[in-house]
């Protein structure tokens, strides 16, 4: 069996002034991540292995934590502009999440202008959710029309966080923001819901790349922001196997918890069991022995 490759890129120069990510550093991390992940000597060639020219590409980010703990605009916009430059059209890139208010609170400047990067929420007038629930196993949800209709390929640009119910939240759970009723799917450690949701064609067939934002990691008491348990890890994690990336994300959270003397997630009875469920559904690898982890620094 071929192992799933997950790439961790660290950078000590990730930050600019005022605790914001440095866009130039972000671009270096993205480029390195894509090179190592795809084995391409040129990062843009790596992107071309994953995406096709002319595709509308969605960057599903996480802004539920608003200004306190969300995907940084410096990260998402840098990636969006790089994709746009590589494929030639800014307005084919959509950076998106559930609501415009959350996007704005997280520091994003909304945009729907022709010719420029699109940044918008599902609640943008004229978008919204599809009219009929999409059903798969335990899940029945209306889908954001951004995910369902406006994009052909998707990147889950998710924050890596401890999660009081799910164990951890990463690239898979990030797609809870693509449906109208995520509040219905937090029982039993969000299992099997996270896996069942990802299995739906509207996600599974469009998802191409996971990038976990682990620049800062909320390793305890997440997903809310608590500065005393938030570590500046300076990492982004890349992978084509969405389950493997989150499995590595879980390891990063556990490593931080162990370092800080906290009990492991299984000890707190919130092991992210949805990863094993996702593997059972054929969505990827949830066992570290089946994952090739490459860590590099830029």
């Amino acid at each position, binding site marked *: 069996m071929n192992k799933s490759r997950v790439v961790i890129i660290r950078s000590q120069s990730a930050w600019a002034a005022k605790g914001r990510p440095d866009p130039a550093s972000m671009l270096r991390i993205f480029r390195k991540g894509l090179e190592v992940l795809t084995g391409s000597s040129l990062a843009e060639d790596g992107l071309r292995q994953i995406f096709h020219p002319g595709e509308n590409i969605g960057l599903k980010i996480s802004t*539920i*934590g*608003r200004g306190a703990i969300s995907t940084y605009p410096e990260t998402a916009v840098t990636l969006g502009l790089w994709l746009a430059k590589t494929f030639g059209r800014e307005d084919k890139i959509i950076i998106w999440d559930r*609501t415009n208010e959350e996007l704005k609170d997280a520091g994003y400047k909304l945009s729907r202008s022709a010719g420029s990067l699109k940044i918008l929420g599902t*609640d943008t*007038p004229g978008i*919204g*959710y599809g009219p009929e*629930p999409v*059903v798969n196993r335990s899940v*029945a949800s209306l889908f954001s029309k951004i995910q369902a209709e406006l994009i052909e390929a998707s990147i889950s640009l998710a924050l890596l966080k401890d999660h*009081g119910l799910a164990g951890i939240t990463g690239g898979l759970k990030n797609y809870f923001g693509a449906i*109208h*009723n995520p*509040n*219905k799917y*937090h*029982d039993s450690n969000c299992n099997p819901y996270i896996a069942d949701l990802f299995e739906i064609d509207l996600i599974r067939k469009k998802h191409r790349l996971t990038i976990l934002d682990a620049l800062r990691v909320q390793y305890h*008491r*997440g*997903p*809310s*922001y*608590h500065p005393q348990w938030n570590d500046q890890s300076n990492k982004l994690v890349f992978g084509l196997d969405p389950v493997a990336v989150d499995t590595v994300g879980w390891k990063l959270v556990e490593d931080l918890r162990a370092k800080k003397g906290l009990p492991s997630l299984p000890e707190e009875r919130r092991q992210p069991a949805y990863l094993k469920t996702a593997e059972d559904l054929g969505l990827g690898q949830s066992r570290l022995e089946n994952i090739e982890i490459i860590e590099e620094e830029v």
Partner: protein
Amino acid sequence: MKMNRRNFIKAAAAGSSWFLTLNQLKGSELLPAAKAAPAGANLSRVEARYYDRLPDREIKCRLCPRFCQLGDKERGFCGVRENQDGKYYTLVYGQAASYNIDPVEKKPLFHFLPGAMAFSIATAGCNVACKFCQNWEISQMRPEQVKSHPLPPEVAAETAASYNCPVVAYTYSEPVVFYEYMYDTSLQARKKGLRNAVITNGFINPEPLAELIKAVEAIKIDLKAFNQDFYTNYVRGELKPVLESIKQIARSKVWLEIVYLVIPTLNDKPEEIRQMARWLAAEIGPDYPLHFSRFQPMYLIKNLPPTPVSTLERLRDIALQEGLHYVYLGNTPGHPGENTYCPNCGQPVIERYGYTIKKINMSGNKCRHCQQVIPGVWS
């Protein structure tokens, strides 16, 4: 002629036979000067009741048996109550996603002010997720995802009174999740001499239910099945707390009716219905109405047929055999099972067609034929 309380009493006294003209008004016709806000425009920020503050800005909701424990910025299963910086808020207070005037028979309440009109209100949200929900377009939504209308408690009560509705009903979605709004509206309605009826799944904790009981006059509970497996697989809830709610309400002075939606092959086993009827007879007595309602395919269960009327009839017979006095069929217009029969002499005391009262043979709260007291709230 509209059936209001006065007309009802008059009809009862006269034993007259007449049809009501049900003037069902839709929300948009009730408040013509006001416009519904687009989805996302109206979110209230009123502190919720029944929650505990926990360390690190977490909270634990005590309203329903889910006991959602939430971090900052998180919402409960209901989707309408949110932790904001360690304080818990209801986002739907005074925000009606639906409001209409319906006959109480539509709820259904058959022993509660027959023929009365109920000003009926709902917000977004629900604390379960029934696969057969007929109002999923509001109940399974978060408040941002539905159009809503500002309708503060005093305005709701005033509107009900202005349309001569003797009842305010909290219905359509799940009023437990808009508890604060329902409770405060009930108090306002009472000030105007109106009654309050709650149409609920009964999935609520004893403490808030005890307070609610003090503020309302009638509660209808949807008992979805009499086994936990059904509650797990089709409702995402629990049976036991619902049964506890039924007992708690029956011990109070609030009028109680129970509805059981019969879904072919899923919750229509005769032996289970017999167990349920026995339980009801033993725990709350034979006098609270039980309605067997006909299922129509909808929402996530479209692969099953409507309930055969013969199934409903068989289940009704079982419940009657087990000693329940008032067992009705619902969604079967014109069926004799819609009528109220005197348990003593067997004569019809209220004849119905769908939501319409056809004939009343009662004198006050008694059967006109044999003077048997018929339990309920009649005036």
